[in-house]
């Protein structure tokens, strides 16, 4: 009932010039709020959600692109450099959005449940971590015993080359894993990919002997970044210095740069995904997803199509891995756990499997929940613990609350709830894929007959 009224209201607003006004008002409000109170997460959420109003309201596509570009390329870097934490959050959203888009190809388009997706991310990250650090010269030293003044194997600008190498290496790994296991039925495939993910993590943890490839649980550091010319920093300070309020350092600009890289990867992924989805391969994927037997009967080369999906998804994760290694300058096996894989899966499922805006929405929602809301809740609880407040009625002092109760650490609970609730109540996701929507509609039509 209530949702009906909201929908009617939305339809009423969403015509004529109203959308333009609302979008602009939303962006200006968000920017102004973040500008006046740089530390408030509510202000930040208002700004971030302006992307959603940009997506949902009807407006000329050229208007949307221009406003979106201004928002993403100018407003967010400025706001982000003012408070570097926001840029970090947005960078994380972008990284996970890219991963979710990659997994979306495997799970959403081809219908292959991959529970070890993070393994390909790890392959990319360790690829650059090995060649972009001193690790090559550490091969014969146990972790922690290497001399301090080792040279780097490659210059930092080799990063650009490795962005492309990672595509090839990760895709190759995907094919290597896919060849034996893609003949399997869907549920077996899920478990085998899970196992593969764990194998990669255990290898990363233990390949510090006999030759020290990964430096074991301590992880590899420092990893090089591409060079940042001084002139860029100066130019940025000259143009935007007044708006930021303090002098941006090279480190700040590195954050902006990696944010731009992540954005670029996302745009490439979206472009590729859309082109592929409308092509012969995309149709073949849909056929394989809906009914394998029928797909074979139609002459679709099953294993080759599945391999293509696997390799494409893997290559995107590989690129993001290189990006992660360079932006963090440090990686360790912990970042590539099973929980991360399920986290990315829950983003895809929340947004809607097979839907590009859905994957982005899912990634943004889950990451913001993790970084802003759960952590904010944690802070609030620890403040309560330090106060003398008492829960009314049951007369329980907050001070006595166990310190184990730290909401920021309960990500599994969040992922688990998302997966169960979405599967039961909205299997199509928040923004169902168009094709699926069509199919569901026709299902209802036949049911009514």
């Amino acid at each position, binding site marked *: 009932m209530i949702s009906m009224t909201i929908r009617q209201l939305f339809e009423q607003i969403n015509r004529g010039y109203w959308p333009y006004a609302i979008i602009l008002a939303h962006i200006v409000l968000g920017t102004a709020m973040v500008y006046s109170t740089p530390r408030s997460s509510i202000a930040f959420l208002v700004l971030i959600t302006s992307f959603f109003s940009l997506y949902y309201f009807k407006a000329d596509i050229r208007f949307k692109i221009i406003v979106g570009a201004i928002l993403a390329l100018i407003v967010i870097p400025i706001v982000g450099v003012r408070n570097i934490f926001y840029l970090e959050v947005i960078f994380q959203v972008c990284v996970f959005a890219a991963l979710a888009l990659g997994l979306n190809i495997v799970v959403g388009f081809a*219908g292959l*449940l991959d*529970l070890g997706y993070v393994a390909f991310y790890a392959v990319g990250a360790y690829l650059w971590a090995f060649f972009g650090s001193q690790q090559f010269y550490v091969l014969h030293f146990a972790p922690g015993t290497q001399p301090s003044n080792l040279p780097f194997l490659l210059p930092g600008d080799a990063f650009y080359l490795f962005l492309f190498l990672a595509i090839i290496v990760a895709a190759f790994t995907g094919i290597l894993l896919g060849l*034996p*296991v893609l003949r*399997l*039925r*869907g*549920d*077996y495939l*899920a*478990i*085998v990919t*899970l*196992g*593969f993910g*764990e*194998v990669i993590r*255990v290898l990363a*943890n*233990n390949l510090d*002997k*006999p030759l020290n490839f990964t430096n074991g649980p301590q992880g590899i550091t420092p990893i090089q970044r591409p060079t940042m010319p001084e002139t860029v920093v100066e130019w940025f300070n000259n143009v935007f210095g007044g708006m930021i309020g303090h002098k941006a350092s090279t480190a700040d600009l590195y954050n902006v740069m990696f944010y731009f890289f992540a954005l670029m990867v996302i745009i490439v992924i979206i472009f590729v995904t859309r082109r592929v989805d409308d092509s012969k391969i995309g149709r073949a994927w849909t056929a394989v997803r809906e009914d394998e037997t029928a797909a074979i009967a139609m002459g679709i080369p099953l294993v080759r199509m599945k391999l293509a999906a696997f390799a494409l998804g893997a290559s995107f994760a590989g690129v993001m891995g290189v990006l992660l290694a360079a932006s963090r300058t440090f990686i360790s096996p912990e970042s590539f756990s*099973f*929980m991360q894989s*399920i986290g990315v*899966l*829950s983003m895809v*499922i929340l947004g809607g499997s097979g839907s590009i805006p859905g994957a982005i929405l899912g990634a943004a929602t889950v990451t913001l929940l993790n970084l802003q809301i759960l952590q904010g809740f944690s802070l609030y609880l620890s403040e309560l613990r330090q106060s003398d407040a008492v829960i009314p009625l049951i007369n329980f002092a907050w001070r006595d609350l*166990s*310190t*184990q*109760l730290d909401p920021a650490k*309960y990500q*599994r*609970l969040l*992922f*688990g*709830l*998302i*997966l*169960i609730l979405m*599967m*039961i109540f909205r*299997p199509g996701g928040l923004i169902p894929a168009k094709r699926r929507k069509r199919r569901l509609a026709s299902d209802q039509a036949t049911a009514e007959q």
Partner: protein
Amino acid sequence: MNRFVQSINVNELIRPLGQLMVFSLGSAIALSGIALMLALVLDQTAVGLALQDKYNVTLYTYTLINLPQVVIDGLTIGFVYAAIALGYTMVYGVLEFINFAHSEIFAVGAFIGVEFLIAMDSSGLLRSASIGMSYLLLILAILLGMVAAGGLAVTVERVAYRPLRGASRLVPLISAIGVSFLLQDVIRLVEGLTTGDFNRIFPSFGNFDQRLNFGKLALGATNINLGISIKSIIVIVAAMLMLIGLNYLVNATRIGKAIRAVAQDRHTASLMGINVNRIISITFLVGGLLGGAAGVLYALKFTRIDPFVGFFPGLKAFAAAVLGGIGNLTGALLGGIVLGMLETFAGSYMGVFTMGAAGSEYKDIFAFSILILVLIFRPQGLMGENVGQKA
């Protein structure tokens, strides 16, 4: 009374016992043979010489000395895997669905059992308990773990799987993964709130930590200690009883017949007057009971548990079920025992055989490698028949 005794199908009680014996002995002999052969071969190479330098024993003697303990450890963990694998296999047989949350049902069983014993410990009952009393308490703990895990399994089926029956295959699987993650954190939350610490230790009581020594076996110049800890005996005996009981339930009772009928063809079974929903609930209940008991036994054997304790045993048990042929009860037994043995052998000997390059840290991924190999070369498993995909 007489009629009741007559109605017991003795054959169904003896047959699984024989199978268990054959599987255990067979895998023990086969793996021991392989390990000893490898040791003999590697004795004269750098591997053997390195060991000789370090400890002044030949590789062959080293292998031989450790062998009895390795076999017993392998059997113990193998029986635990078998008990968990039965839960996977029963549900898969009936619903063609991997109950991903089974590993957490196992963990809940372990926690309930251990919490009960810790409560007994803090009330002072454990320290003063006689031997008989401590066995009684252990049995009580196992029963409590079983009841809790069984109840949880039925609840999970009702809440998270039943609404999704009839959807495409991946939908309930994703929901099951969600349940698994949710339960892990719920255990952590409850333990964190009530006790402040989610790593729990199985209290030490009774005579479970002692070893029975059968004396020494002289082989040339070396003596091999033959002995077994009481813990291992308890785990093996309890698991055997459960496995025999389950086998009897499935193969020689009315309910078992109904379960098999539902597994074969759900629609026809319902036409024959079987309440399919009830049978599916019973299947989950039985799987949960076995998982819960396995959890308490696991805690008894390995002492320390945490909320994520179910993850690896669960995956390995699934690998065991696939290895034996999923949906096949005897296969799950075989798979569990073989996998437990293989893993223990690899964990104990791989480090020495590869001169420390790859040791027991790779134990956990050993099961996955076997799983992948089995799925590639014999997807129907060791004992399964090659059946087509059900429509």
